[in-house]
């Protein structure tokens, strides 16, 4: 039984300033060490000043993940030496004197599985190390503190994931959720990072750190599961340890045991008073939360009578739900939903495809209207969609241009049926004997009309002709 847990770090890039000072939260546009001040550099005599909006954003995240949020929050020092840490301690959160981090005991549904969120905490990002030089001898370590002090929300899950695919789905849901909340921009490099831990068959837990992207995380998890399985097959014990992901060699490597020697000497950060978040404030934040995926899904099912699986797909993907919400009216919601989840999905299933797509919600409503008043068959609509995504042309224009208008004129269809009967004499005989095979003839008519014939009418007319 594989168990995977995650530790996700999300930068609050949408904030204006860092967690403890007024330098810019999103450091990416600055020259090295040009987004620093005495506070984030930890200069002697400087004092941290907690960012109000960071606490609000972190609390909103906790609420969106269905977490409990406490009345008071506190900060702690995690003491260790590293060049990217200006004070050689990190200000973070811990639940030592009761529950005092921004949130805990939450959950997220991933394809029916409940993933428990153990805790959410607010903390500062360290600076960045840059290694220059090729050989061991000439290598130098440079530090850029622009990122030091950037607000981070750490999200820790229970080891509830059973496989890397669930992890991938979860991370997509989480990214959308965080972007939806308006607290971060998942597209920015390094805005959301994830570390993981893996154990198999109730054995020891192995932490994997230093993972650059979600893509790498999946690779790392796969590798680690395989590594543990092969050890287990040879009856070798899996040691509890921290490993880091070596992106060059695409393997996990045991980190030096120094990690285990670490003693962080956690104690309260006394320069920051405990912060009371009154019930009224928490109620306000909760009220202002954008709709959650599950409640969106419930709404789609209840209000528009959309099938649960279809509603699931729409609700979990902001791109689809935006298209849907803007396209439908009360009467055609179900049709729009189906069009998106059956025909459209294949054309816009990657970020790049979506960015290049010229499709708008108007296109969708126009398409559904055309199908419903029979100027367009379902089959043709798929062709039309492909073209719309590529060129953005209007449905009306395409109907004429691509010759997609549904052929529903009886005499026109009859003409085509006559042609088909001529060409498929054997099939006609078969159909007379075995009515089930009539669909072959229908298919031939559809072929000849390039899918534009009204299928219901065609079937009707063929049946008549056969008798």
């Amino acid at each position: 039984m594989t168990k995977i847990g995650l530790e996700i770090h999300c930068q609050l890039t949408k904030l204006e300033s860092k967690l403890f000072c007024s330098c810019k939260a999103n450091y990416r546009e600055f020259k090295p060490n040009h987004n620093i001040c005495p506070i984030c550099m930890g200069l002697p005599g400087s004092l941290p000043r907690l960012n109000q909006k960071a606490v609000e954003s972190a609390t909103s995240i906790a609420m969106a993940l269905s977490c409990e949020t406490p009345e008071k929050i506190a900060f702690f020092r995690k003491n260790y030496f590293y060049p990217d840490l200006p004070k050689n301690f990190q200000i973070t959160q811990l639940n030592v004197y009761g529950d005092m981090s921004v949130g805990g005991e939450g959950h997220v549904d991933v394809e029916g599985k409940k993933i428990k969120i153990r805790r959410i905490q607010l903390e500062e990002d360290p600076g960045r190390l840059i290694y220059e030089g090729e050989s061991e001898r000439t290598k130098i370590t440079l530090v850029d503190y622009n990122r030091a002090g950037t607000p981070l929300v750490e999200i820790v899950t229970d080891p509830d994931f059973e496989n890397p695919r669930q992890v991938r789905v979860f991370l997509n849901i989480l990214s959308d959720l965080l972007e939806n909340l308006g607290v971060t921009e998942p597209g920015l490099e390094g805005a959301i990072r994830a570390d993981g831990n893996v154990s198999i068959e109730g054995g020891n837990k192995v932490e994997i750190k230093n993972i650059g992207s979600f893509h790498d995380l999946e690779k790392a998890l796969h590798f680690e599961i395989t590594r543990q399985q092969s050890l287990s097959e040879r009856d070798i014990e899996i040691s509890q340890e921290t490993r880091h992901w070596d992106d060059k060699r695409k393997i996990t490597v045991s980190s030096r045991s120094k990690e285990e020697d670490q003693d962080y000497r956690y104690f309260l950060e006394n320069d920051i008073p405990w912060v009371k978040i009154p019930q009224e404030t928490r109620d306000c934040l909760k009220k202002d939360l954008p709709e959650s995926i599950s409640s969106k899904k419930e709404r789609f099912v209840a209000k528009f009578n959309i099938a649960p699986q279809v509603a699931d797909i729409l609700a979990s993907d902001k791109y689809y739900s935006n298209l849907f919400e803007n396209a439908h009216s009360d009467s055609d919601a179900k049709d729009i939903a189906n069009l998106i989840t059956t025909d459209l999905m294949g054309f816009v299933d990657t970020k790049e495809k979506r960015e290049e797509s010229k499709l708008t919600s108007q296109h969708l409503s126009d398409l559904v209207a055309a199908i419903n008043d029979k100027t367009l068959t379902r089959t043709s609509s798929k062709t039309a969609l492909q073209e719309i995504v590529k060129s953005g042309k209007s449905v009306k224009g395409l109907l004429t241009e691509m010759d997609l208008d549904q052929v529903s004129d009886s005499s026109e269809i009859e003409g085509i049926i006559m042609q088909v009967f001529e060409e498929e004499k054997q099939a006609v005989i078969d159909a007379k004997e075995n009515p089930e095979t009539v669909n072959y003839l229908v298919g031939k008519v559809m072929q000849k009309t390039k899918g534009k014939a009204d299928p219901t009418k065609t079937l009707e007319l063929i049946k008549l002709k056969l008798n």
Partner: protein
Amino acid sequence: MNLKTSIIDYINDVKSGSFTVEEFTSATIQRIKDVDDDVHAYLSLNESAIDDAKIIDKKITAGEKVGACYGFPISIKDNICITGTKTTCASKILENFVAPYTATVVNKLQNEDVVITGKTNLDEFAMGLTTEFSAYGPTKNPWNLKYVPGGSSGGSAASVAANECLASLGSDTGGSVRNPASFCSLVGLKPTYGLISRYGLISYANSIEQIGPMTKTVKDCGFLLNIIAGQDNNDDTTIDNKQSDYLKNIEGGIEGKRIGIIKEMTADGLSPEVSTATKDAIQDFEKLGGICEEVSLPTIPYTVAAYYTITSTEAGSNLARYDNIRYGYDLDSEGYEYNSYISKSRTRFGPEVTRRIILGGFVPSAGHAGKYFLKALKVKSKLISEVNNAFEKFDFLISPTAPVQPFQFGEKIDDPITLMLLDYNTVTANLTGKPAISVPYRVVNGLPIGMQIMGNSLKEESLLQAAYALESKTELPEVPL
């Protein structure tokens, strides 16, 4: 020029034209030149002090608005940052550290036209009681150069006592303003925690330390407090003092006030001279109309251990940033590996700081926190309840500031326990966050004795009243230097 004046008298003299700011400043600088080779109160001097004085004189003659300080000379402990000045904390590891910003308290004073004479000596990183732990040599007590001036703000105290300036800003973590004030016959106040901004004070134990004024008179102390106290946006631990005026009712007296004599601080462990002085001080309080009664605070015997456990933990963390990578002293990292570079740089810490850092790594560590650090925090909580209870019954709590008079160099430095116990009477105010003031009471055999008065939180106004009242009963000799 009479340098033995007080701030308030000085201001009156300048206003009335008895002398100019430049004249007084020059005389002060001359005094520093005359005595500081012996006293060694200063680590660095403000080269533009005379220029600063001239600017203020110009304002006065031009009839422009002049700040409340009228250019009186003040010294600043060298763990407080002033832009462009070397701020060393009396350590070799910050030998070349030039502060790029100014502490709030100094800003406030500069906005009121004070003249800064220089930065004063201290025990390295404010850890010590005698200023013997300065990496730049000790400061001598102006009352007797063979004796310690107290610590850690020994340089601040000596500079005022030797008339090398009219006041100083020190810092008090466990008695570091009150103890040297007592040893040098000065007024020294540790305010309520959060009354004075710590922005720019280089942290040693940030949960309990405060900047404190050191002056010759109680009124001068109130004067300074009016300028530097109050909520500061740069320090989230500061509290709103509702614009209190600490001078207004300072002569109010203590008629009918209830005064608790802290049993545990006035029993054994006091030298005979201090014991006698204490008994006399109690009588003086009673003559002034105070109602004195003994009060017991049973947690006191545990406070020194709790104090050192807590402060060494915080120091171990606050001093971790000194790895010489971003600032410090000159040492090229070429050829060094990370851990060896940092360890080599940190050999620049003096012996006492080194020991406190080790202690500070030990007592909160995973295996030992339960026995030491967590217990110390609980002692702190227990003490706070006890003292709050006492303040239900009493307006002030008193004791001698130090259990002994100043002693000679080298006398106490070898036994860590004896040294720690010098703080016995002062750490309570820090651990509880309550304000406490040392008032110069007597000089015996040429060595000063101070009395400590503790008040309830944010009650500095009445605390100063009590201090002023006691001061009125004292007759002190002049410093022989």
